[in-house]
């Protein structure tokens, strides 16, 4: 009896590992295919049956892609837009969350309720007006057009306020008695305490900005201000791009996020589990 039981367990364990590995293979395969595709020649990439492992790891396709479209510029724009969005949004989020969590002002609860209602409005709906607004503001087709609409986020403010609320108020009053100003208390006590939440918000925001496609496609048109996903789409849709070059360019967009995810998996997963993704 005892041995039979043991055998049963090991069979079910094997089944679990086989199923999990098969699933993982399906999830990872497109990435494998993209990255290996970036190292294949124009002939190899059209082979059928396909070539499973590339024969060389020369960077020819990357060089060709970089010479055909200004991917270095796109990359820089993506980095600038990401830093701009994340830093502006974090700043307004910290101040806003603090005001809603610790300070008193008339109509606070009504305003907060209204904000919660606004959170469900799909970005795709308000894009129509925002497109006109950035034209009216005169920032259409500049890097600012990619940053200005995202300087504040109700969603991130809501997450951070939740954390600020969990910090005991006694700490706040103790600091006040010691003559600590609100401003100092926020930056010297609250922000360091909220570091894990802040890191999560920053990571989610950075990922969302890096991958955003709809808004850059609307807000800029010149190659000099395009970000990577939009630049890649232009590269593909303007014709002449071979598959192996498309894969090389896609690899350039995807790899930074893969690296980021490997280092910060826990924070990102926790953030997603708590509030879901933006957009």
């Amino acid at each position, binding site marked *: 009896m005892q041995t039979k039981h043991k055998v049963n367990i090991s069979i079910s364990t094997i089944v679990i590992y086989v199923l999990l590995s098969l*699933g993982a293979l399906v*999830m990872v395969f497109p990435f494998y295919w993209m990255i290996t595709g970036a190292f294949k020649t124009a002939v190899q990439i059209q082979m059928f049956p396909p070539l499973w492992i590339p024969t060389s790891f020369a960077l020819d396709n990357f060089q060709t892609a970089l010479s055909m479209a200004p991917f270095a510029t796109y990359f820089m724009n993506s980095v600038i837009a990401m830093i701009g969005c994340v830093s502006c949004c974090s700043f307004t989020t910290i101040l806003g969350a603090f005001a809603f969590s610790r300070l008193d002002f008339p109509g606070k609860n009504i305003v907060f309720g209204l904000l919660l209602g*606004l959170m469900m409005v799909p970005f795709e709906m308000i894009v129509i007006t925002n497109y*006109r607004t950035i034209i009216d503001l005169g920032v259409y087709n500049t890097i600012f057009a990619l940053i200005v609409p995202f300087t504040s986020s109700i969603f991130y403010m809501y997450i951070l306020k939740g954390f600020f609320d969990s910090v005991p108020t006694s700490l706040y009053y103790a600091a006040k008695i010691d003559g600590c100003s609100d401003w100092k208390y926020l930056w010297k006590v609250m922000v360091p305490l909220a570091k894990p939440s802040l890191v999560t918000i920053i990571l989610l925001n950075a*990922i969302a900005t890096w991958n955003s496609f709809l808004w850059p496609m609307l807000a800029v048109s010149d190659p000099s201000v395009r970000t990577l996903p939009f630049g890649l789409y232009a590269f593909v849709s303007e014709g002449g791009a071979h598959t192996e070059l498309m894969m090389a360019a896609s690899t350039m967009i995807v790899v930074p996020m893969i690296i980021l995810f490997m280092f910060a998996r826990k924070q990102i997963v926790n953030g997603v589990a708590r509030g879901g993704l933006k957009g």
Partner: protein
Amino acid sequence: MMDIAKIKQQEKRQRLFDKIKPFGYLAPFAIGVTIFTLYPIVNVFMIAFQENYNYITKTYDSIGFDNFAYIFSDPYFIQALQNTFMYVLIVIPISLCLSILIAYLLNQKVKFKGVYQTAYFLPMVTSTLAVGLAWKFMFNYRSGVINYLLNLIGIESINWLQVTTYNFPALCIYGIWSILPFTIILLLSGLQNIDPLYYTAARVDGANEKTIFFRITLPLLKPTIFLVLIINTISVFKVFNELFPLFNGPGVSNNMFTVVYYIFYQFRVRMPGEYGYAAAAAVVLFFIIFIFTMIQKYIEKKAKE
């Protein structure tokens, strides 16, 4: 006497400052939200009801339901609604079943959990566009790896991207794959919230794994499953980005319109942009999502009780 007056004045100033201060903290946040979230909503609702609206001169003829009458008689919009609802109906249940299975397996005592998690969650952090191009390459009729695998099991090659009937299945396959990570994460955290005591008790009573799964795990996971259903429906309803890498837009013969693509098409693809029609479609999108959100809030409230 002078001093007291001075102190009083100072106190008054301090009190005024205290009253204004919260608004100082709020201002940077509030300005952004007002200009880029609050105003656009009001504006979109207004444009949707303004007939023959001209965005350059900001004038309109009258107020009424013309824009709605137009979009509901526009075959593209009807097609967009059909495609989007069909997409939701296919992607949501399939991705949910797969995710429950994977989350259940990931929740077992397995080694290399970090490796598996990284593998399963990667699509969540990577660009829809870039990964979509990899899928386009995999869907290729002549040299695609998907057709190669189909040939291996005796199925003839399918022209996924160039033949209209196969566009939709291709989009669904890619859609299911991309929504899995998010779904698995939510279900996994739901599973981890189940008290292990239930399992121990069931095992003591001699229940096998199958009974435990269907009689304990699934019923306890029910609130999470409902929540995931609604959140995913809202997000899947906005399918848009996926169309660009796979089809360069709405399919080979304008057969892949979705609601969000229709909005985009009316105000950006058409020249000059038809803002009224786009706004009307956006209002329709808003109400569909509004209904789902209300259901979500109701479930969340019930789960808390």
